């Protein structure tokens, strides 16, 4: 049986752990607020962008000269999975749920005889996917050194993806990230970004006939690559908010668990201490009686 001193040490170390998880929870909470604001600030831009694009695109999609980003390459043999995850762990199932979704998609595609390539953004996803699909990972990018996510980061990723698309390295690109619903709910999401999926507009929605300056066929090739960057940027921001949300709730759990452990350990410690005192008393009394 552990001595009283060992028990004291154990309780102290659990308390230290609890302090750390508590601090991490608080840090995550304050960062979450900022990340959430950033995600919300980016929403009007992304929404407007897709509204404008789908407006132009629905007219252009049928025409034979439609750009590749909209019409696709006409095949769907090679898939690029752009998997965005966090840089750090200690966030519950956040990273692994994104990875799981990507992995299941990849396995389904492989079973259909398609070719799969990975582009990993974020260290955690790369580490997990490397074990299964080491050869298929064509590129991975670390955002660890980035303190404040900017549009530049997303543009950077978009440029790399687009360069590969122009080289004919893949036909379909799907983006994986966790959508931020609330602190306790982050939904792993797959979104196809190349070729662009134009949302079907409601039949009775009024369509405004715009004048275009320059003409549609000149405007569209400029907008589409930009839209890819915007979608990636939105995914990164959603991901960031989701990460802190997941970290906050998992650290909250950890703090609670640590509290429970401290309570139990303290109880055992007190019982043992009381037992020892009783034992000593019995020894003294029986010693005195013998005299």
């Amino acid at each position, binding site marked *: 049986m552990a001595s009283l001193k060992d028990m004291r040490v154990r309780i102290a170390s659990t308390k230290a752990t609890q302090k750390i998880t508590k601090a991490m929870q608080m840090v995550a909470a304050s960062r979450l607020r900022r990340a959430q604001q950033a995600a919300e600030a980016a929403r009007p831009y992304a929404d407007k*962008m897709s509204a404008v694009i789908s407006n132009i695109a629905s007219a252009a999609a049928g025409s034979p000269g439609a750009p590749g980003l909209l019409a696709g390459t006409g095949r769907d043999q090679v898939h690029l999975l752009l998997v965005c995850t966090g840089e750090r762990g200690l966030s519950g199932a956040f990273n692994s749920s994104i990875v799981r979704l990507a992995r299941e998609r990849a396995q389904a595609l492989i079973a259909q005889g398609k070719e799969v390539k990975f582009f990993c953004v974020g260290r955690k996803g790369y580490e997990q996917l490397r074990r299964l699909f080491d050869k298929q990972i064509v590129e991975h990018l670390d955002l660890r050194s980035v303190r404040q996510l900017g549009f530049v980061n997303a543009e950077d990723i978009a440029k790399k993806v687009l360069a590969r698309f122009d080289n004919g390295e893949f036909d379909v690109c799907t983006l994986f990230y966790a959508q931020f619903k609330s602190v306790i709910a982050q939904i792993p999401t797959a979104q196809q970004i190349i070729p662009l999926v134009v949302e079907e507009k409601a039949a009775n929605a009024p369509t405004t006939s715009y004048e275009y300056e320059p003409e549609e066929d000149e*405007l569209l090739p400029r907008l589409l690559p930009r839209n890819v960057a915007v979608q990636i940027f939105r995914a990164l921001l959603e991901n960031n908010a989701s990460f802190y949300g997941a970290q906050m709730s998992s650290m909250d759990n950890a703090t609670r668990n640590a509290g429970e452990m401290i309570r139990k350990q303290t109880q055992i410690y007190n019982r043992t201490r009381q037992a020892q005192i009783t034992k000593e008393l019995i020894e003294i009394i029986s010693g005195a009686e013998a005299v």
Partner: protein
Amino acid sequence: MATFHFDLVSPEKLAFSGEVDQVDIPGWEGDFGVLAGHAPVVAAVRPGILTIIAGGQKQKVIVLGGLAEVSDNRLTVLADVATSIEEIDRTQFADTVAEMEEKLSEKEGHELDLAITRLDNYKSIQHELNTTAMH
């Protein structure tokens, strides 16, 4: 004077939102002003200075390319970057221009044309910045 709703959004933030009298936009094919009741239009924006006129007050914002959309008596400008003229870091801007000039020699063909146009736009912003004194 009739007003209309104007939103200036960049990927990072909502830079301006409110009722305005007039907005002058540096369009790709020439500057144009938007007043209330403008016909629906989608126009590309070149890097330049956008002027917002609301209640007799003028406000200038530097936009580095983007897209303008007018519909239902509201104007939305999706700017790649939007910085108000008071906030811009002039030395940094000058550095960007210098860097672009240097990189010009690496480019060729269509890309060179694009880079030259872009540089011209940036230079005209810089010229504007330096000639209009701050008040």
